[in-house]
């Protein structure tokens, strides 16, 4: 057991999976000698060499495209896209191919690959370095879309993503990379993809969040408890797609109210699907309209205005109070 931040915990997952499976290779820009711009692949190049930890030329489409080819052959590539904002240059390889080869070949081939991308705000960076684009990947059949909320589940979910026989897009919150440390067991730990977790028990209200927003939801819940005597239940999705609709519905059946929090833009964002799913399964339990606290529908804001854009504790509390007062 060691106290690790998210960067170190993810690094541990990569190290241990590479030790146990020679088919696991890492490919991306600066992932080798430099250890990745966020150091998630730190020291792996030294341990495993340039054939397994590949400093690729600077070309996102070919990073994903060649990884698809490697996966079709039987390797298990882990691609790093340096920032999720650059992934539109490989979006066609993800949508047209990684997600489809199993179906296109009618099961003859499959694509066991992980596409890691840092996403979200919180590092005071320029355009294309702070956005949240999970809705694009969550909408693609054939893909899985995973977003951990801390070091321990980050490590365990990355292990599962690497072992998954299908392509997984794995978003890592830049705001969480160096935030809290957690106890992470030395022995390999895996967590099922597709299952949400109750991150806090409560009976009055459900807050649905994932990634960096779980921390915001927790702080809001503590304030609501202290100041309003209200106990909010937090559903940490962990996997955005396939969505754990059952856990969501069960929570709202208990609480009757839901607030959904995400950094991605609101319209057609994950909150819309989550709300529809709650409505379909727990309509009669609902005591108030489902609220969404999200990034606004603007292309990007620049980090000088980022705090006004990314949902914060105050906005979540305000939405929760409005929902409770309805």
């Amino acid at each position, binding site marked *: 057991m060691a106290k690790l931040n998210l960067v170190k915990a993810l690094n541990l997952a990569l190290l241990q999976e590479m030790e146990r499976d020679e088919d696991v*290779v890492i490919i991306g820009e600066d992932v080798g000698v430099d250890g990745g711009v966020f150091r998630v692949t730190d020291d792996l190049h030294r341990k495993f060499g340039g*054939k397994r930890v590949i400093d*690729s*030329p600077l*070309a996102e*489409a*070919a990073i*994903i*495209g*060649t*990884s*698809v*080819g*490697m*996966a*079709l*052959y*039987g*390797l298990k*590539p882990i691609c790093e896209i340096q920032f999720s904002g650059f992934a539109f240059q490989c979006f*066609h*390889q993800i949508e*047209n*191919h990684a997600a489809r*080869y*199993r*179906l*296109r*070949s*009618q*099961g*003859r*081939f*499959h694509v066991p690959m992980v596409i890691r991308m840092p996403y979200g705000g919180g590092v005071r960076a320029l355009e294309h370095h702070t956005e949240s684009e999970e809705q694009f990947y969550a909408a693609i*059949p*054939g893909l*899985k879309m995973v977003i951990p909320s801390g070091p321990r589940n980050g490590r365990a979910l990355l292990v599962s993503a690497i072992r*998954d*026989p*299908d392509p997984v897009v794995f978003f890592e919150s830049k705001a969480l990379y160096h935030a809290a440390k957690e106890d992470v067991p030395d022995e390999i730990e895996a967590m099922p993809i*597709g299952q949400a977790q109750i991150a806090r028990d409560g009976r009055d209200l459900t807050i649905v969040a994932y990634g960096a927003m779980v921390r915001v939801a927790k702080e809001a819940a503590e304030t609501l408890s202290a100041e309003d005597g209200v106990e909010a239940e937090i559903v940490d999705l962990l996997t955005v797609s*396939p*969505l754990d*609709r*059952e856990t969501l519905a069960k929570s709202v059946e208990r609480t009757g109210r839901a607030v959904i929090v995400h950094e991605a833009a609101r319209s057609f964002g994950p909150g819309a699907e989550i709300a529809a799913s709650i409505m379909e399964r727990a309509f009669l339990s609902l005591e108030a309209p489902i609220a969404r606290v999200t990034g606004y529908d603007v292309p990007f804001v620049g980090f000088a205005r980022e705090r006004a854009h990314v949902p914060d504790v105050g906005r979540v509390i305000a939405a929760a109070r409005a929902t409770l007062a309805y």
Partner: protein
Amino acid sequence: MPRTPLEPRFQVDYLSILDADGNLDESLEPDIPPDDLRRMYRGMLLGRRLDERMLRLQRQGRIGTFAPIKGQEASQIGSVVTLTKNDWMVPSFRETAAMLWRGWPIESLLSFFAGYLEGGQPGPDQHDLPITIPVATQLPHAVGLAYAAQYRDDDVVVLGYFGDGATSEGDFHEALNFAGVWHVPVVFLCQNNQWAISVPLKKQTHSRTIAQKALAYGFPGIQVDGNDVLAVYAATREAVDRARAGDGPTLLECVTYRLAMHTTADDPTKYRSEEEVREWERKDPMTRFGAYLKQKNILVEGLEREVDEEIAAAIRRFEAMPPPDPLRMFEHVYAERSAGLAEQREELARCLENRGGASTLEERPTSPPMRGQRSERWQS
């Protein structure tokens, strides 16, 4: 400091062995055993006859739109025959002859173009990717396959097909660049058929050749008479041998011509002249190879009838296929079906039940007229 020319000075060769008039350069003639020559001719003929048959099937609405290969048989057969069963073939969407050579059943191709998912499934031991439609996007896959083979020390070469239009796509350049940097055993085979739907080569690139693009990525490129099966064979043989020996990638440009339409959905008379087509018909790869084989006395009688019977039998099997079970769409999305997808499958199953237990919602023949297809032709 004077400006100094850098070494090496680059060079691109053009290779022709058997020209359109039947002249043979014996010094370059590849040593191919008679049985193999016969099989190659048969492969080209099968591609040509199936193409013609598919055009009629499409016009009758029995299959959907497809990309005819007429005129490109030598580029495909001359190259694909150099692969072993263990090597990998990565097609785009106009490789009927090459796919048949690799063992794809005719009825698979027919069902693919009739809209069946089933038609995209390679056999369990087949080292071929299924048809890829977005232009050039299969080329990074070819490079990745080659990287993986090299990583595992397998004796494998990868042959990737694409057209002249593909050379404008970013994926083409990224694939060549990665292949050069990684020095992997891959052969890029461009069937330069002069036309990307309605856009001629001169509007596609200002390069004198497509082959020369390889030089920028640090490996050789060669231009070949793509209607000369002997030249295509000799050049591909050399490239495949180089790749197998660990000497890296090659770009082959087969200069050929699409004698028919881009797909059955367009009308080439709108964008190119009949004179041009007639000029290329004179260079037909079947004619000159046929004459070459006749001269060597190794053409068997009745080959056309044999090939036609093979095609007819496959069409009968294709048309005897069960109707497309809609529930099949839910297979092979993931290794394990998610709860949400299982629910949607149930939803469709109920929908079918409510329609009197329908086993399909489709009617055969299935093909409507495609965009740009003249309706009078559809009716004829």
